[in-house]
């Protein structure tokens, strides 16, 4: 029978049914970081359990790591303790740790793919909702809670409910100046923040197929913002080319065997889906958020919604969001002044993101009123960017070029908004307080749009600022 990728990967990793009606699924790759895992090691210890498959778990440190001075001990004593507990726990259980300074450290969802750990057809999990990123390679990639991190450490399996699969096709072509970030923001805006509950999203169609792996990761990364359990893209030649030659990818005969296996996981042409939605690439324009959920978004040339025109409970949501954001109904979003510009995160902190921006900002200057920071997603991204001189272009334009980490995406390190500052951000969440200040305001957009806002001092259309057509 024809099956989609989700069904094939699920079936291949099925250990068996559980009495609750759930299924026990083997986890091919487990990634951990310092925020959600130390407690799980504690739980193992309480139960006297060992890690079942230490060679299938990899650790990195990303959330709490400072991006200006990461020398040890870290200045924040609690951050230092979290890093130390992770270091000790991974050493005690024989788990490989991508330590700062090793050349391999970075945001967990940047590091997995760049090391070639993330491979098509795998089940992947991590105590982090943006694990969905790895779906770009044709994986079932799930964010889990700490108790489940414990389950995976102890058994290398998870108890899982089945999900439905919605195929989201983006057909046609994107207009000049429209990026992967705009596509996913548009999808979330259209289907809603809870539109994906109960679903895995399969992204398909010519626009997706023409995307690079880094763009595909941006798309899958934000599946969780649409409420989906995970998101994935079928593996193809672009996937295989990206993986070829990466450190953890098999070589020689083993590569040939792996390739054959990877290809076999792609959805069959006549596979059935529980739901299908089609978007047209031509319809999508650069998209930014105006509110406090990623679905509260609009095209750059649209006006901020009016609560009076919204029905039911959602009216209160719109009113509250406008209130918090200090924005006015019916006003254009374009021209909204910003205080901070942030380029980074597991959504848009990869080499191509910085490359794209560097080409545009060369010779331009960040507005005097704007504090602008660029934070590479990993030590490898940092190194590659430096080799290309990209850091210098950013610095010449008035950006600070920082050390790798999650940084202002969630502000668990010293990078934070102050008071009610407005941040043009390439990250994935604009929740109240997300960037470290309880009154801070986040406007999500693509890296290119952040650059345009940084240069203009206000939310701007990158196509106009950089003459893209």
């Amino acid at each position: 029978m024809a099956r989609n990728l989700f069904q094939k990967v699920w079936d291949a990793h099925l250990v068996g049914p559980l009495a609750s009606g759930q299924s026990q699924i083997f986890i091919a790759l487990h990634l951990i970081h310092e925020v959600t895992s130390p407690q799980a090691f504690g739980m193992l210890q309480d139960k006297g359990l060992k890690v079942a498959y230490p060679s299938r778990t990899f650790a990195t440190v990303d959330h709490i790591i400072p991006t200006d001075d990461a020398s040890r001990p870290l200045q924040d004593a609690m951050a230092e303790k979290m890093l130390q507990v992770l270091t000790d726990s991974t050493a005690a259980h024989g788990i490989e740790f991508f330590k700062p300074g090793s050349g391999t450290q970075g945001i967990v969802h940047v590091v997995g793919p760049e090391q070639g750990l993330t491979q098509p057809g795998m089940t992947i999990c991590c105590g982090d909702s943006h694990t969905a990123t790895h779906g770009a390679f044709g994986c079932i990639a799930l964010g889990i809670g700490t108790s489940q991190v414990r389950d995976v450490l102890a058994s290398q399996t998870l108890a899982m409910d089945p999900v439905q699969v919605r195929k989201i096709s983006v057909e046609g072509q994107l207009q000049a100046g429209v990026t992967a970030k705009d596509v996913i923001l548009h999808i979330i805006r259209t289907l809603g923040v809870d539109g994906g509950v109960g679903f895995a999203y399969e992204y398909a169609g010519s626009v997706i197929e023409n995307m690079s792996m880094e763009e595909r990761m941006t798309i899958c990364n934000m599946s969780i913002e649409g409420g989906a359990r995970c998101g994935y893209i079928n593996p193809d030649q672009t996937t295989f080319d990206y993986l070829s030659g990466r450190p953890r990818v098999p070589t020689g005969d083993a590569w040939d065997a792996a390739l054959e296996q990877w290809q076999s996981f792609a959805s069959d042409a006549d596979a059935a889906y529980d739901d299908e939605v089609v978007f047209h690439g031509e319809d999508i324009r650069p998209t930014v958020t105006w509110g406090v959920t990623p679905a509260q978004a609009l095209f750059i040339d649209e006006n901020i919604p009016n609560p009076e025109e919204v029905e039911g409970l959602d009216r209160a949501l719109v009113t509250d969001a406008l209130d918090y954001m200090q924005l006015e109904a019916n006003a254009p979003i374009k021209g909204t002044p910003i205080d901070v510009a942030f380029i980074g995160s597991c959504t848009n902190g990869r080499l191509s993101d910085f490359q794209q921006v560097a080409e545009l900002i060369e010779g331009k200057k960040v507005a005097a009123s704007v504090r602008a920071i660029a934070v590479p997603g990993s030590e490898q991204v940092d190194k590659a960017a430096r080799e290309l001189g990209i850091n210098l272009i950013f610095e010449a334009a008035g950006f600070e070029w920082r050390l790798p980490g999650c940084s202002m995406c969630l502000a668990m390190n010293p990078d934070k908004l102050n008071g009610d500052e407005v941040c043009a951000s390439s990250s994935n969440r604009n929740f109240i307080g997300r960037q470290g200040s309880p009154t801070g305001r986040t406007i999500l957009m693509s890296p290119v749009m952040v650059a345009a806002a940084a240069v203009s001092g206000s939310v701007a259309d990158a196509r106009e600022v950089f003459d893209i057509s």
Partner: protein
Amino acid sequence: MSQYSIYKISGSGVYIEGNDIDTDRIIPARFLKCVTFDELGDSLFYDVRFNEDGSSKHHVLDKPEYQGAEILISDANFGCGSSREHAPQAIQKFGFRAIIAGSFAEIFHGNCTTLGIPCVSMPAEDRQKMAAAVADDPDTSIIVDLENLQVICANEVFNVTMKASAREAFLAGTTDPLDTLLAQRDSIDAVAKKLGYA
């Protein structure tokens, strides 16, 4: 985590209004700086409850008449966003034993189940009645009956829904799956071998 069957939970309730309440709001990221979950209860909904100088915003959770509430009532898509188990942990450590909402985000729902906090879904109209009842009389007793999928409050019976596997786990006392998972060692190893992971 002890393993016993849960059929019913009763207690007084408190209503926290709003759709799409995310886990960053339930527990802001700066409180995730910890290596155990023990101290999280006090930080629940911190930025909604307290000003930056630590003074109270007199949020409903801090009103004297709602102290000791054990059932949290909220709206649609509760617990969306970050997968942090710190969120349900904080809810539990604060003293809540069950959540009634319009709907739940999936990772949050799974985390709650594992921790033994039942999550039941109720339509908007009925939630409004519940909200009115607890506003009227904060001591109103609420019974969340998992066996019959009903909530009984102020002499009214409301039908609720619950994910079947979660309900099953509460009734059977198997919300923590670890022992069940570990019992399958041989089958686990067989799958690992078959896929070339071992």
